[in-house]
């Protein structure tokens, strides 16, 4: 018989209160995953499994202790509750440690279309064939040295959340992925890249022909890359880079915990101009079928659309219940979710044409981001721009700057956001960054 996890979560909350917790919260995830990796036309690994996990938050007089387990036996759960209550008593009182007041979810969770069963209806065999076919199309290109593997995966499951403020809700969600990695080049001078897509539904994935073409183009365009001299030049970020590098770093600097801990250069900057006025950044967890759409956060705070930067002015941070209370602000629900830097009206070509000498940034490697100062420094791969035209590929250089300055130096915004990931942004022109090379 299938366990009623909604009921179980509620019972655990109840039990925790009975045993001495002032407040309690329980979440359970019950899901299934499938993945197949293929290489050189053969299956390499096949993973298929179901798993369940439970996490618990216990608050005793504003002292918080958390626990999680993959063992859902009632004995383990009981012991976890008791341990957590015992442990909480050792901790320090923190007036901000409390569950949020119950807020009504004023939208229909089903309208978010988080779950689609189309991938479950496709047999493991077909999924495998699809990955093999994707790889085959790619390696048919003579410029491709080899594939590092293609894969298909999908998962689905249900998240349950209940707490002692009376919250109890759940949502079912699904996701699918298909992608391929490739190497191209001569001898020891190889380049690695690839392409992928992900979606809530099988039907939502890009066709393998489109993925293969992108993967081959992205990998082969780096063949013959050279190192260039150290210089300060304008840099054009491809949509993938605008999303991964720029937004990826920016969200770290906007996280509530980094703000109250002063580990972000954006701490205390609400209402100030933080970027050029052509930038507007919006986070919307309520997009139907959106890759990161979600109805409520870990504490049951309902999702809402929020403007983060409006025409260059910083409007809000990502605030969970705790960091919001610390900062004397209101929690604003789950975030970052579907984060969008709103597109402008320039095509990528127009943007490249506007650059006399500069770099089209295609991918980066390495960490090199410091939220406290905003400093950014990464290994870079790109294509050199000369007189508004793309010329030769560039590698073994680094790109550096400070995020505060980079945001203010965004001179053009493209009309081509990359829809594949939950962070979406178009091509951007940064008027100056340092390239270190020879």
């Amino acid at each position, binding site marked *: 018989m299938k366990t009623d996890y909604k009921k179980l979560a509620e019972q655990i909350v109840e039990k925790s209160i009975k045993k001495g917790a002032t407040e309690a919260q329980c979440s359970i995830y019950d899901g299934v995953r499938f993945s197949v990796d293929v290489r050189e036309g053969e*299956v390499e*690994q*096949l*993973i*298929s*499994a*179901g798993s*369940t996990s439970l996490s618990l938050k216990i608050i005793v007089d504003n002292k*918080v*202790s*958390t626990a*999680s*387990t*993959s*063992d859902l036996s009632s004995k*383990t759960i009981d012991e*976890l509750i008791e*341990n*957590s209550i015992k*442990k909480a008593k*050792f*901790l*320090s009182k*923190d007036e901000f440690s409390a569950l949020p007041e119950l807020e009504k979810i004023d939208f229909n969770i089903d309208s978010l279309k988080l779950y689609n069963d189309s991938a479950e209806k496709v047999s493991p065999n077909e999924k495998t064939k699809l990955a093999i076919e994707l790889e085959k199309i790619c390696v048919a290109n003579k410029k491709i040295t080899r594939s590092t593997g293609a894969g298909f*995966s999908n998962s689905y499951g249900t998240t349950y959340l209940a707490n002692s403020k009376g919250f109890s809700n759940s949502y079912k969600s699904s996701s699918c992925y298909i*992608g391929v990695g490739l*190497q191209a*080049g001569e001898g*020891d001078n*190889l380049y*690695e*890249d690839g392409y992928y897509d992900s979606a809530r539904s099988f039907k939502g994935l890009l066709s393998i022909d489109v993925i293969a073409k992108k993967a081959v183009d992205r990998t082969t365009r780096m063949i013959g890359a050279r*190192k260039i001299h*150290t*210089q*300060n030049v304008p840099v054009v970020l491809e949509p993938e880079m605008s999303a991964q590098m720029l937004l990826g770093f920016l969200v770290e600097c906007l996280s509530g915990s980094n703000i109250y*801990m*002063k580990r972000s250069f954006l701490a205390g900057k609400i209402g100030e101009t933080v970027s050029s006025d052509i930038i507007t950044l919006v986070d919307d967890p309520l997009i139907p079928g959106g890759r990161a759409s979600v109805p409520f956060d870990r504490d049951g705070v309902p999702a809402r659309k929020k403007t983060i930067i409006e025409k260059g002015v910083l409007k809000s941070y990502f605030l969970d219940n705790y960091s919001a209370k610390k900062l004397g602000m209101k929690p604003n629900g789950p975030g970052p979710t579907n984060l969008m830097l709103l597109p402008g009206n320039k095509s990528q070509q127009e943007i490249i044409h506007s650059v006399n000498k500069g770099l089209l940034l295609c991918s980066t*490697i*390495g*960490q*090199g981001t*410091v939220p*406290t*100062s905003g*400093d*950014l*420094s990464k*290994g870079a791969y790109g294509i050199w721009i000369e007189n508004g035209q793309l010329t030769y590929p560039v*590698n*073994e*250089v*680094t790109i*550096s700057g*400070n995020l505060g300055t980079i945001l203010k130096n965004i001179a053009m915004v493209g009309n081509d956001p990359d829809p594949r990931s939950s962070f979406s942004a178009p091509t951007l022109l940064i008027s100056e960054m*340092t*390239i*270190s*090379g*020879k």
Partner: protein
Amino acid sequence: MQDYPRRDFLKHCGIGLGVVMTSNLWLNELLANPTKAVGDTLLANYFGFTKEQLKKLLEIGLSKGGEFAEMYFEYRISNNITYEEDIVKSASENIMLGVGTRVIKGSKFGYGYTSDLSFDKIKEAFIAAAAIADAPNSNKVANLNEKKIPNQFYSMQQPVSLASLEPKIDLIRRSYHSAKAYDSKIARVTSSIADEMQYILIVNSEGLIVSDVRPQVRLVVSATAEDGNTRNTGRGNAGGRVGLDFYEKIITPEQIGYQAAEEAVILLKAKDAPPGEMQVVLSKDESGVMIHEAVGHPLEADGAWKKTSIMWDKLGQLVANPIVTIYDDATIRDLRGTLNIDDEGVECNNVMLIEKGKLVGFLNDKLSAKILKHKENGHGRRQSYMHPPIPRMNNTVLAKGDSSPEEIIQSVKKGFYAVTYQGGMVSGTGKFTFSVNLGYMIENGRLTYPVKNATLIGTNIDILREIDMVGNDMGFFLGTCGKDGQSVPVTCGTPTLRINRMTVGGVA
């Protein structure tokens, strides 16, 4: 989500680590006497199954024509406590219990797992894994024989996971206040301790039954210094497969807090690095990350048989300056990456990788050893029962040389001295970066001013030839290594090194 096969090394990726739970009978006994557990207790219990049941399950694994079947049972308790803003802010506990089933056929494998340790659920997981093969069953399960661990390389004295809360809170409180007291410019400090105890049992169709009990602890301090509008964060950390006494005998929590605060305050005065190619000296403290990225990953045997590593065809060739010798030794006592047996039950030892510049070995798991026809060398590791084993590093070390560190710095007319790192990353093609948190400029053989946030970039084939001075000192760096979506604890060691030419990414 899957990603392209880039490997990375993160200095402070906190793995949620464990309080003592006693949910099973055999565990009660185990926890009461962890030292004994290494010997017989766990073996006598087989995670609640009899030898006959285990054998039956393995037979189900082979029923579709698989050549090798295996079960990896895991029970792990982890704890994390954080001290911040003058209070113990949070405490967490994580329990992981489950079994992973694997069936190999040729060079492919199927994998299943479950957190429900009932015979039927494991059978289901095995049926999922067995689907990799599609032939009549022709292979037999050997008689199961218990194997004792030959050597014990980690300390089972005072395991941190079995300690009560007070001494742990005391450690983080002391490190926190040490960082705070360092300088009035220290604005914020976070100090946390993460510990775990992992109990594993490996049973396979070759007849092996073996178990291991692995402690792990790490204390991490992060300090932010503030001066006007300038803010910087420094970090300190120490730990390993050690007990509580480590923080008295080897390094005190005060020293860890001091390290973090000192780095943060120095960074306030640090300038941007001048960009371009120059001589680079890597300090002993954390530069092992270079060896890990530039040499370790390309020498994992999966990249060799798949030919995706730039080193796959270079066995026996001179790939580095002959002053360079590199090995991976999982048996160095008490280190973060140390293991008695790997996650396939193969005994760990010291594996020579590059000897006097010549490539002599790869780190393998059972599958890659079989395909390459190499001897198994005990480097199959996995993040948890939910992950299949793959070739990984443990403690990767560049052997000591002859030069004193002073002599190396004095030899540089104009160059860059790298001290602490955020981490490193490498692609299969051998291109790597290291993100330097704190460094110094060297002018006329002397350190001049501090430099922040520079990226070093290169290709492993080039850098191994450019190492032209090797120090007679040695430092170890604790990290968490990510590969194919799996994180495992590792250590890497290096003496002070001079690299003749390398690109330093800075700001002009």
